[in-house]
């Protein structure tokens, strides 16, 4: 599909409809009756999420970004209930351009919060796949533990992710990744990695 505006350059897709899609699609979606039982399908999404974790650990951002839909959202809510990002500050809320800005900044060599860079290892577990009305959309819940070493010690960031996958031809792309830190409403030390 040809987009009218290049989402790396301008941001037209972050509009009321998108915000409403976020609020609606991330409410009440982890329902037992929607859980996908088919083992091969669950394995497909588990492998996608594990690959994503590896690419982030290895700072292979270009390959990582290629897993995402052209118009995507990376959303780290600031409250456990996630809330409505139109009315609340989030820990992070990136569209494609802002995420590319984020990566650009990390690569300047002058992002002091990441100079030296963190070394990370992501552990992904408890992967569950849920149907979401259309066969071309899947919602995936996974738990994560990120071991992060930087300068003076190792710490763990933990929480769970909600991935909204959309089918793109033969493959699946990430339309939204909601990263829910268990301590998202607390004061966080140096949250400068892409979680």
């Amino acid at each position: 599909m040809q987009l009218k505006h290049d989402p790396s350059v301008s941001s037209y897709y972050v509009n009321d409809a998108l915000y409403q899609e976020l609020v609606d699609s991330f409410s009440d979606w982890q329902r037992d009756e929607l859980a996908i039982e088919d083992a091969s399908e669950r394995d497909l999404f588990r492998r996608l999420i594990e690959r994503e974790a590896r690419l982030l650990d290895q700072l292979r951002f270009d390959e990582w970004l290629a897993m995402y839909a052209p118009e995507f959202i990376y959303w780290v809510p600031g409250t456990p209930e996630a809330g409505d990002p139109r009315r609340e500050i989030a820990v992070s809320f990136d569209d494609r351009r802002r995420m590319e800005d984020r990566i650009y900044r990390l690569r300047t060599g002058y992002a002091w919060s990441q100079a030296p860079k963190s070394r990370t290892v992501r552990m992904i577990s408890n992967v569950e796949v849920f149907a979401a009305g259309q066969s071309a959309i899947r919602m995936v819940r996974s738990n994560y533990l990120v071991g992060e070493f930087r300068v003076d010690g190792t710490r763990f960031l933990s929480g769970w992710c909600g991935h909204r996958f959309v089918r793109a031809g033969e493959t699946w792309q990430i339309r939204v990744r909601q990263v829910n830190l268990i301590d998202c409403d607390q004061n966080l030390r140096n949250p400068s990695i892409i979680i």
Partner: protein
Amino acid sequence: MLERLNAPPARAESIAERYDWDGLVQEDRVHRLIYTDPAIFELEMTHIFGAVWVYLGHESQIPNNDDFITVRLGLRPIILLRDSNGKIRALFNRCTHRGTTLCRKDRGSARFFQCPYHGWSFLNTGKLRAVPWPDGYACDFKDAKYNVAQVPRVESYRGFIFATLNPAAPALLEYLGAIAKPIDEWLDRQPGGKIAVCEANRLRYKGNWKLAYDNSGDGYHVVFSHRSLLEMENRQADVANKGMSYYKGSPDNAPMYMAYMGHGHHFKDKRPAIEKRPGGLWAVEGPHPGMEHYAQSLRQRFGTKAEEILDLASSEPVNINVFPNFSLLGNHIQVFEPISVAETNVTWYGTAVVDEEGVLGGAVEEINALRMRTQEQFPNFGEVDDLANFEEIQRGLGCLEDEWVYMHRGLGIPGRVRTGEDGIITAPATDEAFMREYIKEWKRLMKASPNLAVQREP
């Protein structure tokens, strides 16, 4: 009624006498100990975070009677609330029986608080409500000493709630003094002169709280500490004037300036660096999610009036710093919260536009959707680098024998730092004059002998 303290906390007298304060805080430099010494930190918790007006919260966080939030005054856990009669109070979050905290929630609504440990309960005025099995006590529970202790002086200025344990402190408005004017201007650019707090970017660093306050008016660090941010937000710009680009080149010759306004407060005014016209602020706003869509949509609906609406989503180029823990910058309320001598919370509360009178013609939701995203930018891409540098200062100060930290930029250059008839001291944007002045005030307070008190309902 005010309650005199039996034993002043924090071994204050002996700590205060242990130091030669004039030796630690000199004209051009300060000793590393003021950032590293746990005993000095302990004294600060009474002489600063106790003796002066300290920011606790915003009225929009407790809009209705019985609403509360839990905060801190220095290290003291506080329930900041609007009682059942509408009065704003700052209760010590501490049961009078055994000292247990009464409330463990961040926010909520409650007419009374029951201690989870032995079941004593207190009205939200602080008055003791009931004690289980009172027959087991010979005392008179009507004695005021069983009511929850509270901060004796709590005052608001246009929604900002401050409190002090010092009965001898001046009135809040007098304490704010000249800095009240920039606060007014910051509020008056909002419709109805009002804002509402809407969650926060909450950060923490391993360093002394004063490193953040030192930085709050520092124009010298911008192009170095925030180099990655400036490069990032201008990477696709036709004209590289986005964000704080006005610090590039020769910032001291730019029309922006810093002003020291007394009582430790200072003001960095960067507004003269921005073209003064509707849309002037919006024109230098860096990229953020939804920017092009909402700008187009508002311009289609409102024509030229859209520009001033868009300015509301843009960062106001000021740093209004009220000693010791409150700062208005961009559209944020920034609060500094000491945790220990080498650990500090820095919370960037977001603010939303509240358009009660409907002057925005229904654009309030859209402008807030933009304003949330502009406010997330600096904490994500700027503040994290400052905090990394503060942590590295704290680490550098581990060099015990290299004792001094300098703040003498602009000192001794004739005509550079000016004192006006109103006592306001002004200097170029990169001067450290404000640092020297506020730390003098800090020294005065650390030498003083404040008599702190709590209050209880009669």
